[in-house]
């Protein structure tokens, strides 16, 4: 596709400055890549935040089993913490390659895009889990005591007292993490997915002109600026 565009619209040029028409065409082509970048972003956000929350509850779970030898095992907690350790202890790039190239060896074959989604969701869920866990830890124990003496049960306490206060504490770090996510999406280029980064690189190659790098930089910055705005509104809304 890039070859085609190259021939029709972009006479090869050594110039660093490109014409307005070329700029518009550059934007058009890069915005094709934006589709993958943005859909990956939203899929990861919408799946990894709930999964991170589940991991948080698992990781705080007091569910214990006593073995016959008298040792205590906490299956949910250990599972969650082990998973988080694994995800944070290895590069996302490696996880991405493992899901796409490694899983087929155990019979799990995923297309490029679903593979990227799986790797990103698992990785980001681990980071969100740690953020949420920190938020919950920061809640004053007096809050639980007040809830208990008022007769609120555990579930109601979690929903009405713990989560709202946790979210308040977590918002800045969640914002940070989503900003990282936008930038990390560029890694899917390694799987050959035509995301914003991929389109930029091929355009630079075919144009023999580095301007698309600058355009891509601006696009990433605009996305991140928008995100930060949304989060600062959220932050204001949850201030008490």
């Amino acid at each position, binding site marked *: 596709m890039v070859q085609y565009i190259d021939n029709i619209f972009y006479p090869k040029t050594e110039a660093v400055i490109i014409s307005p028409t070329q700029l518009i065409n550059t934007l058009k082509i890069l915005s094709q890549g934006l589709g993958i970048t943005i859909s990956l972003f939203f899929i990861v956000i919408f799946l990894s935040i709930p999964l991170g929350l589940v991991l948080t509850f698992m990781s705080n779970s007091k569910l214990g089993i006593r073995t016959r030898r008298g040792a205590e095992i906490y299956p949910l907690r250990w599972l969650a913490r082990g998973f988080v350790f694994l995800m944070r202890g290895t590069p996302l790039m490696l996880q991405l390659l493992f899901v796409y190239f490694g899983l087929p060896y155990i019979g799990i074959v995923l297309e490029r895009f679903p593979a990227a989604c799986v790797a990103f969701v698992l990785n980001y869920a681990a980071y969100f889990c740690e953020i949420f866990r920190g938020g919950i830890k920061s809640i004053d124990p*007096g*809050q639980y005591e*007040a809830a208990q003496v*008022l007769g609120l049960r555990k579930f109601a306490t979690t929903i009405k007292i713990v989560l709202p206060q946790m979210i308040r504490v977590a918002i800045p770090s969640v914002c940070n993490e989503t900003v990282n996510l936008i930038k990390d999406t560029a890694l899917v280029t390694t799987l050959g997915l035509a995301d914003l980064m991929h389109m930029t690189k091929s355009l630079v190659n075919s144009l023999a002109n580095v301007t698309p790098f600058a355009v891509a930089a601006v696009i990433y910055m605009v996305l991140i600026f928008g995100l930060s705005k949304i989060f600062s509104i959220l932050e204001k809304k949850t201030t*008490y």
Partner: protein
Amino acid sequence: MMIQVNNIKKAFGDNRVLRGVTFGVERGEIISVIGPSGSGKSTMLRSLIGLERIDDGSIAVNGEKFVDNGVYVKEREMHRILSHSGMVFQHFNLFPHMSVKKNMTCAPVTNRLMTRAEAEEKCHTLLAKVGLADKLDAMPSSLSGGQKQRVAIARALMTNPDILLFDEPTSALDPELTGEVLEVMKQLAAEHMTMIVVTHEMGFARYISDRVIFMDQGVIAVDEKPEEVFAHPSNARLSAFLGAVHTKEAAN
């Protein structure tokens, strides 16, 4: 008996904090609990409402035991027995993300003890009673310490508790704000609310309460009427404690 406590014991590791505490509280009685720091006052009070798990002994509320010789009843049962006890904390423990109204109506509405409309009406009445009718929609962060504590008391009253426990309700307040909280407590006393109050306010212990319990090293060393405790302290450690408090108050 509103509350009957029998020989309760509690240790944190090797630290035996309660070493056999026994007392009873009649309906309508007001008990002040005094004693040196670390004597186990808070631990004892918190045990009465299930915030601490005791190792041994029994506690009954309204004739129903929720722990018998160190064995607790099932959680659901405990929840039911303790549903008519309320507690007010030193640091108020209001929910910071909820308005005053939400703070008060959240638990009773969630537990379906009343409809939202009933809860809101009750909330109005109680806020007026503690002199904060205009703070219905205020957030806790905008209130002074004294106002927060009055909201906390009103919140504890939402479910018409049979007994209210107070753990140093004025200790976190600036001296000029203790009066408004003590005033509300006096009002409750006049209405014959059963109260157990851990306090450093000797005025409250002396003039408002019906009985004073002096705790020392995990036991009740003295349990008498305030006149006896303050006029003729029978116990050397009590005299020393009162002397120290007196000196401190004089110094302030």
